[in-house]
């Protein structure tokens, strides 16, 4: 069995308004940060997972992303995978 560290990034789709991102952008500007064109907030999920090789683990992570980690009606996801 191989063990992998996976980082999953879940983001609101570009077409979905992100009011928390807008509020944070507004606060960033009040802080004095200049030049911010857009600011959107997503989630990062870290998973340690075992499996027989990278392909099997990718299969499991794809299932988790599609069915649980992201709601694909409103969110996109991507992930990176590192063998431990």
């Amino acid at each position, binding site marked *: 069995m191989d063990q992998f560290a996976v980082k999953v990034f879940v983001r*609101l789709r570009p*077409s*979905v*308004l992100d*009011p*928390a991102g807008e*509020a944070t952008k507004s606060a960033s500007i009040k802080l004095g940060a200049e030049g911010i064109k857009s600011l959107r907030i997503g989630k990062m999920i870290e998973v340690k997972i075992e499996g027989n090789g990278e392909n099997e683990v990718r299969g499991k992570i794809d299932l988790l992303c599609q069915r*649980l*980690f992201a*709601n694909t*009606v*409103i969110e996109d996801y991507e992930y990176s995978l590192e063998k431990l």
Partner: protein
Amino acid sequence: MDNFTVGVVVFPGSNCDRDVSWALEGCLDIRTKYLWHESSDLSDVDAIVLPGGFSYGDYLRCGAIARFSPLINALDEFVKSGKRVLGICNGFQILTESGFLPGALVANKNLNFICDDVELDIVSSKGGWFNNVDEKQTIKLPIAHGEGRYHCDSDTLKKLVDNELIALRYKNNPNGSSFDIAGITNEKGNVLGLMPHPERACDETIGGTDGLFTLKSLILK
């Protein structure tokens, strides 16, 4: 009708389960039974309400974890059999997360948790959930949500409009919902999800009775 029983689902974090039960039993004399989310036996209930609240603390996304409970797994067959399911607020979020209704509910546009009475236009009487005999009708129901902004893509919205699946629209959109949507049904009409709380509008002493009709319609075949 005498033995008609409405199952009121209780998740960890549900907080409108007792209100729904009170409204059904106390105001409408309809028998209710609490269904713990780990139960998958729906054989002795004739209709189901998924009440409002914060199932599983709204972790990950509202309704996302509840979707994997044994009860929601058993709901598929229940819905296919034509029995009626009403999802209120968090219940609506669970119905979209689990795919019984299209779209999703996301954070209110202004980020506020909104607790207010809202005026709603009854758009469709599909499924008989609203008393909309012939002309456009407006009702007033309370809302209480932080993540009630209905979102769907344009194809889904077209389908909702074309098939008359939009049940309720806000008169003054409080949360930024697409097309002012406050509630929708499935194509068959036996599943209704809405953000407003009909169970909180069942007695004049608490501000109105516009929610009675919807709860009463649970007993329709």
